[in-house]
């Protein structure tokens, strides 16, 4: 946690400048080659972007949630692929270790995650277990000092390059749903661990996902996160609470960029002898976008501050994820509309962003799952 506004201001300025001078100029190449160039990856590592949220004692910056979302507002004004590369180390890939890992596990992995030497992936989703995550089937069977993992994980972000995986697997087939699930660290290269082909996605090219397959994959029992079976699902849900707020902040950043692009275009593009920004119907699109964007930004900052104060923000995190991702989709749609025909052409960044941001309404809990969670929280609070 930095707290001191002067130091944090310098940090945010520096990230914003890096985005403008180093990331945005590479966006088109990343989209065309489906690869973030190694030079840019190295710069991202050197800058310290992989360790934003990892505690200082393990080599990270130890940003508070509020600081993290403010950095994301800046960082995510560049293609979401860049955020995706650093997202797992700062979020779902490392959080289980930070929340529930033993000191030895933290010492072993967190410093290398903070430096970006290792990439971490979070393997929860399965072919048959998406929104219904508690129904996951991947099994972990204890054999002496080892666990043997069997099963398949799907759409795993950064898996093709990951050095370690946080894997959710069922240790007790008899226990009811969530109670039988445990979390493990599995290192890449462990015999029995293999990867599927990279998924061909609608957008976010340069960010890679694939299947992760466990076939009699033996891992040391010491790799059970927290050293206790049956607590994995609870840990995963805590990871996702933070992850949802993280994604909501990502949506705010992306929407800011899209609105900025749309505004610039509206001021440059002339029809009927004037910039189209002078037309009230265009102004309505801009104004509605800005209003929703501001609302989402305030929500995310409020929820982040509450989390930093130690409040349980499960409900608020779902509200933020639902509103910010849907807002982002609407802003993308309006921004394409303002661009007119040009918005449908790949030469303009908005065509790419329109596809990229579609994912935000789906992953880390679909909009519909967020609606259910919010309603369940409300009902539980009322009837408790």
């Amino acid at each position, binding site marked *: 946690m*930095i707290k*001191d506004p*002067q*130091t944090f*201001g*310098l*940090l945010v*300025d*520096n*990230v914003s*400048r*890096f985005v*403008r001078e*180093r990331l945005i100029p590479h966006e088109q190449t990343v989209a065309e080659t489906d690869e973030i160039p190694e030079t840019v990856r190295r*710069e991202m590592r*050197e*800058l*310290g*972007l992989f*360790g*934003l949220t990892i505690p200082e004692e393990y080599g990270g*910056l130890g940003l508070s949630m509020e600081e993290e979302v403010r950095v994301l507002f800046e960082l995510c004004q560049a293609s979401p692929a860049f955020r995706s590369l650093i997202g797992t180390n700062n979020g779902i890939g490392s959080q289980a270790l930070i929340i529930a890992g033993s000191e030895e596990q933290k010492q072993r992995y967190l410093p290398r995650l903070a430096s970006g030497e290792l990439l971490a992936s979070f393997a929860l989703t399965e072919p048959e277990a998406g929104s219904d995550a508690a129904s996951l089937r991947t099994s972990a069977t204890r054999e002496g000092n080892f666990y043997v993992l069997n099963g398949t994980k799907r759409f795993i972000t950064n898996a093709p390059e990951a050095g370690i995986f946080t894997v959710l697997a069922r240790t007790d087939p008899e226990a009811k749903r969530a109670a039988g699930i445990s979390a493990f660290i599995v290192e890449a290269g462990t015999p029995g661990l293999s990867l599927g082909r990279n998924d061909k996605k609608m957008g976010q090219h340069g960010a890679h996902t694939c299947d992760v397959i466990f076939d009699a994959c033996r891992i040391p029992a010491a790799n059970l996160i927290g050293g206790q079976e049956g607590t994995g699902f609870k840990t995963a849900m805590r990871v996702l609470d933070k992850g949802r707020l993280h994604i909501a902040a990502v949506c705010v950043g992306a929407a800011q960029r899209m609105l900025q692009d749309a505004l610039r275009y509206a001021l440059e593009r002339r029809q009927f002898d004037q910039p189209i920004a002078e037309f009230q119907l265009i102004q309505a699109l801009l104004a509605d976008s800005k209003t929703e964007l501001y609302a989402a930004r305030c929500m995310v900052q409020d929820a982040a501050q509450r989390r930093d104060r130690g409040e349980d923000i499960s409900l608020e995190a779902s509200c933020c994820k639902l509103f910010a991702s849907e807002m982002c989709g609407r802003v993308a749609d309006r921004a394409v509309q303002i661009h007119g025909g040009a918005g449908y052409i790949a030469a303009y960044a908005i065509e790419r962003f329109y596809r990229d941001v579609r994912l935000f309404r789906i992953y880390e809990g679909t909009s519909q799952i967020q609606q259910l969670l919010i309603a369940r929280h409300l009902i539980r609070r009322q009837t408790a």
Partner: protein
Amino acid sequence: MKVLVAVKRVVDYNVNVRAKTDGTGADIANVKMSMNPFDEVAVEEAVRLKEAGKVSEIVAVSMGVSACQDTIRTALAMGADRGILVESDTELQSLAVAKLLKALVDKEAPGLVLLGKQAIDDDSNQTAQMLAALLGWAQGTFISKLELGDGKATVIREVDGGLETDSLTMPTVISVDLRLNEPRFVKLPNIMKAKKKPLEVIKPDALGVDTSPRLVYSNYREPPARKAGIKVPDVATLVDKLKNEAKVI
């Protein structure tokens, strides 16, 4: 050897500055401020000299309002060892800055003073030259290459006619141009470490310097908007227009 680097807080280079409507100055209320880009090059050069083992300490100096501490912190995050702010709420013109720098040089005894060749706010391009004159030191201005030897500094200067190589006797004052190097992005952990580096704040009075302005700016206005050009059908028309309308040939 100790190096003194001067860093100025200016309007960020991405900001489009407008004149105030009453002509009393530039409207810079609530705009983003940053380190002068030429000064970033100077800091980067000092850090590279230190990394190469040719410099033992880098002192970053800024002058102006309290917020100039941000600029010094940026220099500290880039690799400077400590900072000095000469704090003043009144306008500091080039000669006042040069005199204050001379007082600091007398106090700190550096072997080299590095400055940006000019600041992007007033583009004066005066401070380094004035400082060298006040100190009676050799000066190398607008340099694009610097090599430190035994008691000598060899510089390549970007002059109107091309490139000029000079050998300067140390200690010396050097003002840098943009081609000298490409400043690094500050590593985020270094920003946090910079918070712990020493930053001294002193007043001009303590240095015994009279900083009252010598120049009066009477009016600020924006340059006239460029008129749209015209297309001419052929070379003969072009020559005719240059000769008879524009009267430039």
